[in-house]
């Protein structure tokens, strides 16, 4: 922008609006019930050449009366197993998996309310300058009918207790019981490693959401 003398010019942000009940048409059309694009984005993001431990992240998203929501768009963004993001702003000297974007998209199931992400477990990521490294985590972003502006949160791993206890983000959350809303317990099911991350939009167990 060309500066105008004595003016502090800055363009105002475009306001958010709810994604609405039919978000699936645009972003996950096969869940809406039709095929239109040759190439669809999905929640299954770790191809055979990607390094790292295969994991499943699944969970449900509850509204303020404890009802399971069944129409929520779920997106995740994460580093690779070496702890590097596939993005030019991440200039760490760590290996990059060209075949791993690190971004997943899915929706909670219309019948069960369950969402499922198939990915690899990310590595620990460098923190802000002067801060400790961040424990392995997956960034979440939710949008749906009734959500006026996308909700950002993070999932941490239940089997990373030592790293979690040092994490600079978890530690800014004043109440320890609220930190626990971000930690997904690990289990194994038929040989698959599953992390269960249930999200509570509201109520006694309300998940921590960030203004980042």
């Amino acid at each position, binding site marked *: 922008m060309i500066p105008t003398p004595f003016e502090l010019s800055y363009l105002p942000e475009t306001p958010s609006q709810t994604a609405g009940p039919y978000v699936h048409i645009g972003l996950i059309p096969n869940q809406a019930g039709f095929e239109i694009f040759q190439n669809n984005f999905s929640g299954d993001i770790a191809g055979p050449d990607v390094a790292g431990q295969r994991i499943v992240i699944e969970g449900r998203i509850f509204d*303020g009366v404890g009802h399971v929501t069944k129409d929520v768009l779920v997106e995740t963004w994460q580093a690779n197993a070496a702890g590097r993001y596939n993005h030019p*702003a991440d200039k760490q000297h760590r290996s990059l998996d060209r075949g791993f974007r690190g971004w997943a998209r899915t929706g909670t199931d219309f019948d069960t309310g369950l969402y499922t992400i198939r990915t690899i477990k990310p590595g620990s990521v*460098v923190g*802000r*300058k002067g801060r400790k490294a961040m424990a392995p985590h997956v960034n979440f972003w939710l949008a749906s009918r009734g959500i006026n502006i996308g*909700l950002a949160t993070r999932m941490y791993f239940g089997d990373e207790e030592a790293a979690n206890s040092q994490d600079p983000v978890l530690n800014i959350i004043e109440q320890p019981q609220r930190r626990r809303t971000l930690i997904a317990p690990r289990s194994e099911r038929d040989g698959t490693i599953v992390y269960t991350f249930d999200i509570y939009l509201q109520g006694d167990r309300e*998940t921590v959401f960030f203004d*980042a």
Partner: protein
Amino acid sequence: MTPEAEFHQHDRDLHPPAYTPVYKTSVLRSPRIPLWSLQNSLSEVTGPIFSPDELGRLDNDLILNYAKQGEPIGEQTIIHGYVLDGNGQPVSNTLVEVWQANAGGRYRHRNDTYIAPIDPNFGGCGRMLTDERGYYFFRTIKPGAYPFRNRINSWRPAHIHFSVFGTGFAQRLITQMYFEGDPLIPHDSIIATIPDKSAADRLTAKLDLSASRPLECLAYRFDIVLRGRRQTLFENKLQGS
């Protein structure tokens, strides 16, 4: 632009708050505890990047991308504009996705039961990448208004849903675009969730006769502004970047 700096904080006063009783569904889906303010780390300033070879040739042509036996019914319309950041810089090569109802106000979605018919030749979604100037355009059918269960006689003005990524995951935005002159705009409960009238007005696309195609179709102009990145005066950049 290679993004390296942190984002300006969201101007939350320009966005709808989570809890807006005028839009009833928000009441049980709104967090009640304040959001934790989080300084940007690499997790926020990075985000997914898409490439042109992931998209199909007709992905930005909603008139043709689901045409089976002919073209969809309705007013053929061009929508175009720029994706910029708060500093006025173009947001280039970013994914813009759109979805909408057909000319009768019906969505091709298994959960939509409105009486207007499905158009066999209209899917209702498209996607494109902005060019180096942040410019995007697509061709579609102007969507119809439709009722929704909020109050008993609530109607949505004609609108197109937009999803935009930006250069970092913290810029992620979903919004809706409206059409200049639509008499339903002042009655809409979704627009009414935005407390700032001038911010809400920026969701209305302007009729753009200069971009219309004579004897063929009208055009509307809709620009999108995402949060900008801070200038890093007297400070070190994020570690690792």
